């Protein structure tokens, strides 16, 4: 049986370290807007680089969109999509 990999704990750890949010990441809902929570575009780059290092992936150009890094659930979906290819 195929099991779903849960990327969310690692994503939350990366956000805690790199997103420079003004709120507690562990208390953020998965669909909470990370930019509204204080993430700058420069911080989102750090998040992307940390995700690429953590999961040994590279975000293709078509996923380099503000919305892809806009919430934990959006990041989780993007990472899962890249990891499955």
């Amino acid at each position, binding site marked *: 049986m195929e099991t779903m990999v849960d990327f969310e704990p690692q994503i939350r750890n990366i956000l805690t370290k790199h997103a*420079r949010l003004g709120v507690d990441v562990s208390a953020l809902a998965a669909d909470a807007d990370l930019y509204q929570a204080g993430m*700058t*575009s*420069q*911080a989102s*780059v*750090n998040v*992307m*680089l*940390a995700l*690429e*290092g953590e999961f040994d992936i590279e975000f293709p*150009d*078509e*996923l*380099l*969109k*503000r*919305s892809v890094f806009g919430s934990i659930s959006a990041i989780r979906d993007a990472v899962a999509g890249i990891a499955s290819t």
Partner: protein
Amino acid sequence: MNTHAPRHVSLPTRPDMTVAGLRVGIDIVQISAIADSLAEFGNHFTRRIFSADEVAYANAAPAQTAQRLAARFAAKEAGFKAFGLSEAGISWRDIEVQKCADGSCTLAFHGRAAEAVQRSGCTEISLSLSHDGDYATAMLAALAPR
């Protein structure tokens, strides 16, 4: 008859940053945050965000590397904003700061960024970079003929 000028005027704004052929974008970046990214991610950071020429220019003055990269990152973000590219799926490397012969800087657009700029009809751009203390900023104005 009331001859006084109105005390309050509310003008319409366009969320896509365009006003009758004029597009503008602006961004500000903390230089020390760029230095932190360099320290944390090194070549991974520069390779994913900057062109080889941008990195070479920044590294030519080691004491100013973070400052120069910060100004260039701000310029790229100003380009994203001016042309509404944040959802277009475009690499930061496809918006490149280039030095002109007179020492000024301009933006060059490559790949899908170039296609989007061409679609916008803009034929002229003007880029301004600045920095003070721990911050670098960039403003881009782009003009399309009416």
